[in-house]
């Protein structure tokens, strides 16, 4: 874990300088740990709120900014994001991007996941989200091992023409149009099944 390694290094540094006591990077921890109540310690969510640990830094930054600017639907995140300034958003994005990704622990329906894989290929999701939901594009979130419920909720909102959608995700509105809830669940279960 990052904190431990940092501490170990600090101990070494401390011994060199003759200082015994050490601490984590308190500035980064202070701002980032406000997220942990909902997104899990170090961003490794154990509920249906999305895992943010190890997510692309650019994506995290852009997403917070989109929430702030009303360019993305969130049940609560617009209200939360408006509480942080640009510097704080950069700090927390960097912090969470530096944490190890932890796959969501959830039951995956393999039949649904198989159907989802077909949709993923046929509908062109693979273009941005990669073969298995891991993308090299810095503004594209990792979907492999993410919470299925969260992904379904997000896709449903992206489908809804009355709801704000991040500019970068705009193509998804057309791609998801006409897909049933069953289809969205299938896609979500495919991504959830990937590690």
């Amino acid at each position, binding site marked *: 874990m990052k904190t431990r390694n*940092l501490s170990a290094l600090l101990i070494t540094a401390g011994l060199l300088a003759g200082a015994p006591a*050490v601490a984590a990077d308190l500035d980064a921890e202070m701002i980032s740990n*406000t997220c942990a*109540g909902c997104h899990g310690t170090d961003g490794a969510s154990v*509920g249906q709120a999305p895992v943010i640990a190890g997510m692309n830094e650019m994506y995290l930054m852009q997403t917070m900014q989109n929430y702030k600017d009303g360019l993305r639907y969130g049940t609560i995140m617009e209200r939360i994001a408006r509480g942080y300034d640009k510097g704080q958003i950069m700090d927390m994005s960097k912090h969470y991007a*530096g944490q190890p990704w932890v796959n969501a622990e959830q039951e995956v329906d393999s039949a649904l996941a198989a159907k989802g894989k077909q949709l993923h290929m046929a509908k062109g999701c693979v273009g941005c989200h990669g073969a298995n939901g891991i993308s090299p594009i810095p503004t594209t979130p990792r979907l492999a091992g993410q919470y299925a419920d969260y992904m379904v909720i997000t896709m449903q909102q992206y489908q809804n023409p009355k709801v704000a959608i991040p500019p970068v995700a705009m193509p998804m509105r057309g791609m998801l149009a006409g897909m049933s809830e069953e289809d969205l669940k299938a896609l979500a279960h495919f991504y959830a099944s990937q590690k």
Partner: protein
Amino acid sequence: MSINRREFVKALGTATAVSAVGFPFIVQAGTKAKVVVIGAGYGGGTAAKYLRKYSPDIDVTLIEKDKHFYSCPFSNEVISGERSLDSIRFGFDGLAGHGVKVVTDMVTDIDAAKKTVKTQGGKSFKYDYLVVSPGVSFKPGGIEGYDEAAMEKMPHAWKAGPQTALLRKQLESMKDGGVVMIAAPPNPFRCPPGPYERAAQVAHYLSHHKPKSKVIIMDAKDKFSKQGLFTAGYNKFYKGMIEWRSAANDGRVLGVDAKTGTVMTEFDEHTPDVANIIPPQRAAAIAVNAGLTNDSGWCPVDQRTFESTQHKDVYVIGDASIAGKMPKSGYSANSQGKVAAAAIAAQVTGVKMPEPSYVNTCYSLITPDYGISVAMVYRLQNGQIVGVKGAGGLSPMKASEDTREAEALYARSWFYNIIADIYG
């Protein structure tokens, strides 16, 4: 994970800066700073864990009177029968795994001059820093006649555990057509939306099992948390079942007679089938006895660090503290525990205390699939914790059904995550 160059440089910089000033208050090699934490709830559990996370060179002893902690958040779902009492009960093995020394005992005395706490079990603990997170107690004489014996007849269920189970049992044995009376306390108190979520949860149970019954909220206030959202929710799901009486409408409960089951207000007497009396509150007894409270009954603190303004090196967090605009909630206590832990870790290690940042989110469930929330991000301004301008607020009044359902899902997600953040 390896650490990056910036952090490495920063780390070295810290160590050098420390040596340059000659370690003002730094633990000597081989001796760790001793921190004692009183209370293993949302505040104390968080502080203990995060002190260890922030510096392995802090020796943390957590003293808690019970072997387990029962969470007040989500205890209303035990009352409605949606979840078991076991599902809100948590042990401290996870904290022990982080190197926290967990002691099951009750602190009976805090000697701030000698920096020592004493316990009922006859033990004595010395500390360099003390974190006090004891929660609330009921104001003596707050409701006439509401003594220990009365609590067994008319449960408060405002500290989760056996009281929660008792209220649930009373609802189960109540006849269809019965009246449940919930007495809501005056401000400030633990969990401002709690009594109103409870009314919804009780109504949820009654509407399915005893539909001729009623819930009456007797209030010591004329308005309450998330009032618009709760009222709309009551009307949508429990029309005619929940009645709210404001203080101005003789809603304030002044006394009870447990023997006859009577609830008394200024002008009236009621004999409900189930009486849930949530009394007026102040900081827990240990905080009062240790001289940590002021005339308000709560503990004034430096809101940057949560250090008591009345006793040096004693930090008060959670419901017992006066934390500016933050409500007395589980998430507030969790957030405050992290700020206090950072303040102590900064002092111990001789680094600068970071600018504090605090947060609160309170979800309430109107039904198991219909959630509402209030949230705020806080910062320090002129020594006071205030909400960040433009941030936070309530779930929209006009949100879609999908949004309410998602909020219910995220409410449960919050519970799992915050519990893991404290005890995991």
